[in-house]
């Protein structure tokens, strides 16, 4: 029964993928879109069923299909583990997934390759589910690389544009760097405990050791790749090249949280690697700040959201670093809601403006597209941590945890969230208020998007509003639900004392402050960001993302390519010349040798006699 459920869960999206790949074209856009959506919806329903079951019984379901790879000291089978964590993840993966599918039906309707789009999306969901419910690290790895592949395909969906293809390639390769880390981590763990199964691992891992910390570090590198943390985050902003639903689904809600999932999954390992945890916390904090600062000045609406995603992910890692896994998970969920909503909203805007993404050419859309406006407004409030929106609770939890462990990181985190509030409302003001700054005929075509687009927006907005209820401070259903996963009840459960309330206050104030500044700067003074060429000073530095990409280009990519040229032109030819050398030398000897053969009998006989005498005399000498 469980097996069938699990298979149904996994295979329906895959089925959708197959159908769309092979028959999508002939089925026509709407049908293929519906099929794609249904496929995901079905697995969402299945998830609900499983969720009820697990929530009631409180223990996970193990499904083993067959053993996959045999290695002498560890046997890896293709199996699934459906427990609280994975099902929770599935809930929003499939849930938001189906919403976004729905959204895409209308959004992608003008694209000739719509069926491809849906097949890729289905494939993505399939891999994402595999990633989540895999019963061991290697099955997770299937999903892990699989989603990477799908993001490659979807970022490069408009493959005629080589820049998009570059972005896609970049994403894949950077993920691969992380994946190598993950692999190495697996190797170490495998050789230490001779298993990669979570269940057995959990019992096997007893006390920390340098090797274990190394493993944890490698795994974290993997997480950095997927979840866009320093130093491997630069692919995510570029990934915005993909269609907006993709950005919403893959690069905001689901895939990028895989890193957090993995760390949470292996919490028992990370708990024992304290030094690594600090690393995680620090990296998370820095990432969130760095990304936030960059987000301050971006003008491409999706870029802003992208950087805010990176920064939010940073916050989550901050929480992970303190072992507050359920807090991180909480933020993952709320973030999934409002960030998905924001992306879809921005998509709706872009849709309305026929592909315009530069906020400097927007403005005053409030009247034109009210639903989009209100949903995005709600989400912005949520992400800015305005009280009683979902983001408020989750972000607050994180900051609380940070405060309890290290003040500096708390400060960093808070600053980041202030900035978040600022640039989110900068976005809102620039986009929806004041006068429209686009072209006339754009203005002429301004309209609210269709229901297929707005419905998901509304649903997500609602979720973004009330999502916080699942883990209210004090009595948190989430923590209860997740508790069986964690060895020690870390973070989370703060009894609400004075400090907590003050901190909340501070956070709220910070958020409001950010909003206020944005209001003054972009509403009252009504100034619009400069055009690219006369941005100067610090903002220029920020606008160009600290030149990180350029640095990577110069430090890594260029040298490798140079090396490649060098090898090709010198080493290769060198070796070849060496090998040919033998032939050349013998040939030369032969050529010279021909001169000895003069054709003169006298010489021949002379050599004859010499040889004879030599032999005879040698005989004598020997005797």
């Amino acid at each position, binding site marked *: 029964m469980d097996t069938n459920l699990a298979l149904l869960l996994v295979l329906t999206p895959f089925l959708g993928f197959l159908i769309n790949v092979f028959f999508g074209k002939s089925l026509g856009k709407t049908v293929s879109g519906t099929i794609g959506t249904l496929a995901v919806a079905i697995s969402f329903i299945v998830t609900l069923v499983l969720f009820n079951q697990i929530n009631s019984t409180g223990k996970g379901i193990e499904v083993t299909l067959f*053993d*996959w790879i045999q290695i002498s000291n560890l046997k890896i089978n293709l199996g699934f583990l459906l427990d609280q964590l994975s099902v929770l993840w599935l809930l929003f993966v499939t849930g938001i997934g189906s919403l976004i599918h729905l959204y895409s039906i209308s959004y992608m309707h003008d694209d000739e390759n719509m069926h491809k789009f849906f097949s890729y999306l289905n494939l993505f969901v399939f891999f994402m589910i595999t990633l989540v419910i895999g019963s061991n690290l290697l099955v997770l790895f299937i999903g892990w690389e699989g989603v990477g592949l799908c993001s490659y395909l979807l970022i490069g969906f408009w493959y005629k544009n080589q820049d998009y293809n570059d972005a896609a390639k970049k994403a894949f*390769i950077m993920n*691969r760097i992380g994946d190598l880390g993950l*692999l190495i981590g697996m190797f170490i763990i495998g050789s230490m405990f001779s298993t990669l199964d979570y269940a057995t691992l959990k019992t096997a891992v007893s006390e920390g050791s340098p090797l274990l910390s190394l493993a944890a570090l490698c795994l974290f590198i993997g997480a950095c790749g997927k979840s866009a943390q320093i130093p491997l985050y630069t692919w995510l902003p570029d990934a915005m090249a993909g269609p907006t639903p993709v950005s919403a689904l893959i690069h905001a809600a689901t895939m990028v949280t895989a890193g957090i999932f993995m760390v949470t999954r292996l919490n028992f390992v990370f708990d024992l690697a304290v030094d690594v945890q600090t690393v995680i916390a620090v990296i998370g904090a820095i990432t969130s700040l760095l990304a936030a600062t960059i987000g301050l000045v971006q003008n491409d609406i999706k870029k802003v959201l992208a950087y805010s995603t990176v920064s939010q992910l940073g916050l989550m890692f901050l929480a992970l670093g303190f072992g507050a896994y359920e807090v991180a998970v909480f933020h993952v969920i709320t973030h999934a809601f409002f960030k998905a909503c924001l992306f879809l909203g921005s998509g709706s805007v872009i849709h309305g403006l026929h592909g315009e993404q530069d906020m400097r050419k927007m403005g005053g859309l409030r009247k034109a597209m009210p639903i989009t406006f209100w949903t995005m407004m709600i989400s912005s409030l949520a992400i800015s941590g305005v009280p009683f929106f979902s983001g408020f609770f989750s972000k607050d939890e994180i900051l609380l945890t940070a405060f309890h462990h290290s003040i500096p990181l708390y400060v960093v985190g808070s600053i980041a969230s202030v900035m978040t509030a600022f640039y989110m409302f900068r976005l809102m003001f620039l986009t929806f208020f004041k006068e429209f700054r686009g072209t006339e005929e754009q203005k002429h075509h301004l309209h609210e998007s269709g229901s297929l687009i707005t419905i998901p927006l509304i649903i997500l907005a609602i979720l973004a509003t009330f999502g916080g209820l699942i883990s209210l401070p004090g009595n948190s259903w989430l923590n209860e639900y997740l508790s069986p996963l964690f060895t020690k009840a870390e973070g989370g459960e703060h009894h609400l004392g004075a400090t907590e309330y003050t901190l909340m206050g501070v956070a709220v104030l910070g958020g409001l402050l950010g909003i206020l500044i944005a209001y003054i700067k972009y509403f009252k003074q009504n100034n619009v960001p400069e055009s690219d060429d006369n941005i100067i000073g610090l903002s220029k530095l920020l606008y160009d993302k600290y030149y990180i990409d350029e640095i990577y280009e110069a430090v890594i990519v260029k040298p*490798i390519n140079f090396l*490649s040229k060098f090898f090709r032109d010198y080493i*290769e030819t060198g070796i070849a010349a060496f090998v040919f050398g033998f032939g050349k030398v013998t040939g030369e000897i032969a050529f010279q040798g021909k001169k000895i053969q003069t054709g003169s009998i006298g010489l021949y006989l002379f050599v004859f006699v010499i040889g004879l005498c030599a032999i005879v005399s040698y005989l004598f000498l020997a005797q």
Partner: protein
Amino acid sequence: MNVSTILIILLIGAFATYLSGDKLASKVALLFSLAALGCSILLLNNYNAGENISFIANWINKPTIVLALNADGLGIAMVLLTLALTPIIIFSSFGNEYKNAKSFYALILFMAFAMAGTFLAADGLLYYVFWELALVPIYFIALIWGNGDAEERRKAVVKFFIYTLAGSLFMLTAFIYLYQKTGSFLLEKLYAAELSSNEQLWIFLAFFLAYAIKIPIIPFHTWQANVYQKAPTVGTMLLSGIMLKMGLYSVLRWQLPIAPLAAKEYLNIFISLGIAGVIYGSIVALKQKDLKKLLAYSSLAHVGLIAAGSYTLTLDGLRGAVLQMIAHGFVVVGLFFAAEVIFRRFETREISEMGGIRIQSPKFTSMFLILVLASVALPSTFNFVGEFTVLYSLSQINIWFAVLGGTTIILGAYYMLKMFQQVMLGEANSKTFADVSLNEGISFAVIIAVLLFFGFYPKPITDLITPSLETILSVINKN
């Protein structure tokens, strides 16, 4: 019925193909190769049923040389690889017109015969004979039906022949020396040979020369890229898909068990050579202008990893190596076929002249993409299973080997995707590109099916090869 049947079928097939005339040749060749494949599958069943399918008969009394064909799991696996690829290769050539086709296809079958023999031979000298025989047909295939400037081609091909022959002659010397020691060329006798570590070192090196050139392991790879480029694609497929596996197979079958002490003592050196090949090959591949050359270097990188795996002398290493051999065999044939498909349409192998194919040919694109992903060992493809196992075994020797060897998944992705982007993506190409024909599609489909199936369920192969690998290991560790 025993393994000799396969060889006989192939040999008869070669002659039949030659006699069948240019019109029919390709069909006849395909027929016989399929027959051989079927026969080998039957034998596999018998083998799994515990039946003895080895073959032995006296040949030469003094020096004692025996016609011994020993079919253990490993041998059968490699033969299956050979016989599964041969029909695909022949079938893939259906799109092309070859002058004097009868000789062409006869040579292909003859080569398959020789290679299958190499994988089966259990007598050192018989093995050597097959080993050399395999060299002759590919020489002519590359020389006569090859492409590119004739003079260049001659140079490349002759270099290849002399180079490989040079290596194998030293192997022959080693065999004769062993014969003096043991009084027999038979595999088990040679396994039982009592050799001083010094003798072992020399024998090991003699073998290494032969195999390092065949595989090729850097710095013995200079012949590879040129020959791959100059040979007709069918020849390239034979070379990269099967022939280079002869070298890797021989490492497992002959080199390691006969000279284990040397293998153990210099373990690190040889692993490092392999891994150096991985990195070097990947980096050189980045900047190749010619599609076939790029693939050649990528295969240099892959076999480097396989070799490294074999030299770990661990069960995982050996098993991973064999799995990866098979996987690589399929994927590289697929990739070269893709190159051929493009060449049929565009008449060029220059990457710079391609691009914008995807728009015109969705089917081809997806097939090509799957192959590319398989070759970068995406999980759920067969290659991942092999590569993972090999890397794991390397990590057991020294974690840094795993890290350095693992760079293949980064660099591999880099050059393969770069190539894919330049070849397939971008604005529509000025030249029209017809999507894959049915024949081409079938070849691709078969390869992809194999890669994906074993990617999820490699168990059959693993179970097939593991026992024989264990025996080999027991010989290696006997003292």
